[in-house]
């Protein structure tokens, strides 16, 4: 790295950290909404905070925006401590869940609000409003009132109203929650593209794992105010750190078992009523430990023929239900031990390879796809 930098100055962190939370705790009455949360969010990344309702994700966002103050711990934005700094003095802007557009102001007035409060001259504001509206593809709608816009358009106004201020961090509270499914899928792509174009750190709070996986560079999973896991979507999807994460990130099949043997990177797990399941072993795993064996529905294979075909696990299962779902078949399987698993198989192979309810089939999967979680 060069000793001199063209911009940024003293506080521009060498490792590029945008937001730091240090042991942040926030209580609401008797409940701990956020519990000793420590997070580093990098400059220019799309970071999602994922969790069910009541997990503390919205409180975290409100702590960052400055609407609430932490009971303990410290928040730094761009290297500056935020204790006691009110929202109007923070270099962040929030896109509200319900957009919170000012109903008595036109689109242009809404978008210009932040710059007007910063006392920029009308001559400076006008071109930036035009630019911001073009960025969110709303040119020509500047004189409309928010109530005359569709939900998707309202959301883009809310984005423009925040981004026009060039905040260091853009906070988004369930940004796609109020949109219908089709629009949501489009906006996921659009939001990510927008973030890459403006290069601003986005922190997005959501309960929708698909949304978080699609848009984020990294994400954090929160539960009961505690951080369960941070990582890239792939890390979290393929190597969930706990049963909760595995289930929350997507439907996961699971079985309770006990580690019988560890052989280098391989583990053998004994499951009552089923037998031995082969898995790859996470480091630190010891024989005798109670574990949860998990495997994702789309990693399972069904066949009418026995034979390992390179799959290290195989068992005979009953097809309890077969549901046609466009490009996929969804199966409910009854395991030898009586448990129910789900499988999702592509339909591309043609009708000959489909199963119907009442049939038996050989269920197969690779040891490497099995994830062992501490129970």
């Amino acid at each position, binding site marked *: 790295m060069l000793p001199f930098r063209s911009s940024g100055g003293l506080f521009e962190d060498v490792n590029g950290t945008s937001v730091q939370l240090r042991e942040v705790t926030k209580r609401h009455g008797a409940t701990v909404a956020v519990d000793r949360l420590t997070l580093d969010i990098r400059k220019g990344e799309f970071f999602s905070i994922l969790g069910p309702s009541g997990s503390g994700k919205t409180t975290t966002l409100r702590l960052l925006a400055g609407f609430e103050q932490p009971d303990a711990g410290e928040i730094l934005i761009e290297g500056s401590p935020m204790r006691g700094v009110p929202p109007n003095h923070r270099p962040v802007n*929030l896109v509200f869940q319900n957009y919170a557009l000012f109903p*008595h102001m036109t689109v242009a007035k809404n978008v210009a609000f932040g710059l007007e409060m910063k006392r920029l001259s009308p001559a400076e504001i006008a071109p930036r409003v035009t630019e911001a509206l073009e960025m969110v593809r709303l040119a020509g709608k500047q004189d409309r009132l928010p109530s005359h816009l569709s939900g998707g358009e309202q959301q883009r106004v809310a984005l423009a109203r925040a981004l026009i201020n060039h905040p260091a961090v853009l906070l988004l509270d369930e940004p796609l929650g109020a949109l219908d499914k089709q629009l949501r899928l489009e906006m996921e792509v659009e939001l990510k593209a927008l973030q890459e174009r403006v290069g601003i750190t986005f922190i997005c709070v959501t309960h929708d794992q698909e949304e978080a996986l699609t848009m984020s560079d990294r994400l954090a999973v929160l539960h009961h105010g505690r951080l369960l896991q941070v990582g890239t979507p792939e890390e979290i999807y393929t190597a969930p750190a706990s049963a909760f994460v595995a289930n929350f990130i997507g439907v996961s099949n699971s079985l309770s078992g006990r580690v019988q043997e560890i052989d280098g990177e391989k583990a053998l797990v004994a499951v009552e009523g089923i037998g031995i399941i082969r898995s790859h072993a996470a480091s630190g795993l010891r024989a005798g430990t109670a574990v949860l064996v998990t495997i994702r529905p789309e990693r399972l294979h069904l066949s009418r023929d026995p034979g390992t075909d390179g799959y290290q696990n195989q068992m005979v299962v009953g097809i309890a239900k077969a549901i046609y779902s466009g490009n996929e078949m969804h199966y409910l399987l009854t395991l030898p031990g009586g448990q129910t698993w789900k499988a999702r198989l592509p339909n591309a192979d043609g009708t000959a390879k489909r199963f119907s309810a009442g049939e038996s089939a050989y269920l197969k999967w690779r040891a490497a796809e099995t994830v062992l979680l501490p129970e």
Partner: protein
Amino acid sequence: MSPASGSRIPWLVVPSAATLLLFFLVPLALVLTVSFASRGTYGGIEWVVTLGNYTSIADPLYLRIFWRSLWLAGLTTGFCLIMGFPLAYIIARAPTRWQGILLLLVVIPFWTNFLVRTYAWMFILRTEGLLNTILAGLGIIHEPLNILFTDAAVLIGLVYGYLPFMVLPLYAALERLDPSLIEAAWDLYARPIQVFSRVVLPLAKPGVIAGCVLVFIPSLGAYVTPDLLGGARTMMIGNLIQHQYLVVRDWPFGSALSFVLMAGVLAMVLYFLRAGGAKSLS
């Protein structure tokens, strides 16, 4: 007559329409007629048509009473707004289960007769009254304050009497205000005073207009409060009209005063409705 043809007449409106016609429009027409008649020598009505009742209102003596009424009603409205807005805001932002109780506290004074409550104010404000006794007891004043039978006493009585009429429409408007709009303005660098002037006040405007109309109009025509708290020195239009009818026994002039007051109020209501308060009054 078939039921279908009978249903064209909105029968359910008949009782209220008849009541309004008989007890409102007919007396109004009588008052209007009388306002163009002349006063008889001994206080009766002589049916000599004249505009004299209206031209004599231009007398500085009466104009001063009109002006004082407008001034006191305006001050009352202003004080009610300044005091009522924070109160309505606090109630609207209170937890839902508290809002009903707080609103009840605002309207509880209505459960007691207005006349009785005004007498209570006389007891509080008079020279040896509660206020002076307490202030003297605390050593804040050494000479009793002369409040009763002044404009100040009338103002206190009017503000006290009409404050709930300001708080209720303001509450209705502020309760509808989405709190995230306040946070959004704050997040977009607005200082608290700007949050108020740019977001809260414009969105509460229908409530402000409704509250001002509901306070200003009855204050302008107030009779009991200035009569009891203002004494003989502080006369308002209401007292003047009463005086003309019952003391001077000049019914035509009293009728003319009533009509000028009514026309003025009507003009103001129309102005407020055009200013955007139509929604709030309905």
